[in-house]
């Protein structure tokens, strides 16, 4: 999985293959800044070390500060800190202010903060990695080598992470979303179960609601307080050859609407979250055409979609929630298109990694042999016992013959 778009306050960060850009709305213009990889030499064994795995942005309103984060295949996590005052004066290229070396690649990032005992708060970045671990790092340069293990899904891989309502949500390549306390991550609140394959994304909303998307093709609505599944939708009819795999989900601020994109499809689906009394539902009310969407996010009430072709970023305007298909050619997307175009970016066709045979890597690859396979049951083979009996018999006979032979010898 890759997380290639993030929006906060006046800023949108996108990952275009191996280049990351921050587009920042100022009063009179949009400033686009390229978020450059660290100068450190990357491990030579890593192919395409600069490929973007995840991006994140956080606008700190009170201090008029922007924090951007980019994680790459090189396992480097770069953090860029800007003040809004500086932004207008920035060069088009920005170097990271802080670099953290990760143990494993991270394809899910989120900024958050821990309140101080005294005034203010500690800003941190949280990275979920491909070994199932979640680490927190400082975002300022004064404490480069500090980190804290928040939690770990043993023997799994994390695909999405959210912090919300004093809880941290981590989705894995098995079928689970774990909800732990935050910042007391050692105290697990519960698990969201129901998905039948790997989970691709989790989005958390108001009213204790959250949505998961997964490799089984499902989109599920949960109450995260009770960990109960409220609604499940699957638009596939069981034919695996043309299965639609939802890969990303984003919700509006009020939690009344979600947008979903699917692996290698050409549209974004919009759903209303419906509720009356105790029953919940999701109703599709729109499919918006766009070429191979890779990432989505709501920006205010509009929908931003990052696509493979041809212009990288499309903004669908809300028009009071109607989403009638109006694509605004906004300043930000134009700038991103220009920046991407100038550097000749080639976009990936999917955010799901595949192996050399084209199989999705997150999927379980079950070998039908050996101890790991459920149907392998050597103890049902009673022949082994018979064989052993015969072997024992033969051995006894041989022993007896030997005895007789040696007795004979002694007699002679």
């Amino acid at each position, binding site marked *: 999985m890759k997380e290639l778009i993030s929006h906060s306050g006046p800023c949108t960060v996108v990952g275009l293959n191996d280049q990351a850009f921050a587009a920042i709305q100022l009063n009179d213009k949009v400033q686009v800044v390229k978020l450059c990889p660290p100068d450190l030499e990357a491990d030579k064994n890593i192919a395409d070390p600069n490929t973007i795995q995840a991006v994140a942005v956080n606008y700190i309103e009170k201090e008029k500060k922007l924090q951007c984060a980019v994680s790459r295949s090189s396992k480097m996590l770069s953090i860029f800190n800007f003040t809004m005052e500086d932004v207008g004066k920035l060069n088009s290229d920005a170097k990271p202010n802080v670099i953290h070396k990760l143990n494993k690649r991270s394809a899910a990032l989120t900024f958050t*903060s*821990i*309140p*101080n*005992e*005294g005034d*203010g*708060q*500690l800003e941190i970045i949280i990275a979920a990695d491909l*070994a199932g*671990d979640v680490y*927190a790092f*400082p975002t300022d340069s004064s*404490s480069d080598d500090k980190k*804290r*293990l*928040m*939690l*770990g*899904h*043993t*023997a*799994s*891989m994390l695909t999405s992470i959210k912090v919300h309502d004093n809880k941290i949500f981590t989705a894995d*390549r*098995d*079928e*689970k979303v*774990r909800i*732990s306390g935050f*910042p*007391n*991550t*050692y*105290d*697990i609140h519960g*698990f969201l*179960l*129901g*998905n039948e394959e790997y989970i691709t994304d989790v989005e958390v909303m108001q009213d204790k609601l959250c949505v998961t998307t997964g490799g089984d093709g499902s989109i599920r609505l949960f109450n995260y307080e009770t960990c109960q599944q409220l609604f499940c939708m699957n638009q596939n009819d069981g034919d695996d050859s043309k299965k639609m795999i939802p890969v990303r989900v984003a919700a509006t601020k009020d939690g009344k609407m979600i947008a979903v994109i699917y692996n290698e499809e050409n549209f974004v689906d919009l759903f209303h979250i419906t509720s009356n009394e105790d029953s919940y539902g999701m109703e599709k009310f729109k499919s918006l055409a766009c070429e191979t969407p890779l990432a989505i996010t709501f920006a205010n009430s509009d929908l931003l979609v990052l696509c493979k072709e041809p212009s990288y970023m499309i903004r669908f305007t809300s028009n009071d929630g109607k989403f009638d298909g109006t694509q605004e050619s906004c300043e930000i997307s134009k700038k991103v298109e220009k920046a991407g175009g100038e550097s000749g970016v080639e976009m990936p066709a999917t955010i799901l990694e595949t192996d050399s045979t084209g199989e999705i890597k997150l999927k*379980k*690859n*079950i*070998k039908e042999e050996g*101890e*790991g*396979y*459920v*149907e392998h*049951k*050597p*103890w*049902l*083979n*009673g*022949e*082994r*016992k*018979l064989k*052993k009996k015969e072997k024992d018999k033969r051995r006894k006979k041989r022993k007896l013959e030997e005895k007789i032979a040696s007795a004979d010898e002694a007699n002679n």
Partner: protein
Amino acid sequence: MTKTENEKKRLRDAAESGVGPITEEGEMPQKKFYRSRAHCNPLSHNNTFDYPIHPAEMDWGTHYPAIENPKPTVLDIGCGFGGLTIALATLLPKHLILGLEIRAKVTEYVRLRILAHRKENPGKYENASVLRSNTMKLMPHFFEKGSLEKIFFCFPDPHFKKKNHPRRIISDRLLSEYAYFLKPGQGKLYCITDVEDLHNWHVKHCRAHPLFRELSKDEMDKDSCVKAMYSETEEGKKVERAGTNKYYAVFERIESGTEDAKKITGENFFSQGQFGIE
């Protein structure tokens, strides 16, 4: 495939092979037919196990047919050949004991052993069962929050190399899961090993976890389960014969919110002594 389908297939296979299984149910199995490679990789993603999507869907009835509405409350994790699982069945008659084991053959041995015990001692051992599973990955599918009274880790694989420490069955990460399953203010985690370094690791990680409290020597002495854990497992007996030391400790799951871990604040978040700081 569901449990019953599996069972049917098992019987069908047995019938087809003509000679039947190595051990008939109710007969005491011989260990020699069930020995297995010493190690499996618990971190492998591609092994298959039967498990329900949700613990509520788990049918424990096939495991404890004589008991109404059964739900296990005591786990022997990595039960091996099942000595402790069986000993706990009579020591804790009011609890349901479940041995969990990752190796298929060994699990089958324990299953047959329990069935044989049940047959020999009518009415007894009905509260013991065994399940093949990888507990490092699958516990949330079987057990609900706060549903367990005791979890035993007896002579777990030591995974000596530093590179393999993530395979250890007691770790910061997994302790949070164990705390989730254990009943707050009551649930206990038991661990014993003959490897002193591993014992030190157990103690260090359990002490560092904010939701566990170490039992005093006195408290441990009063607990009959400690004695059972010390002497009833196959590994424990092996160690006895070799005449080397056994090291153990017991921890109680405390109520959430009563942990004396200092409140987590921006100031102490990255400080030594906090959970998750090396």
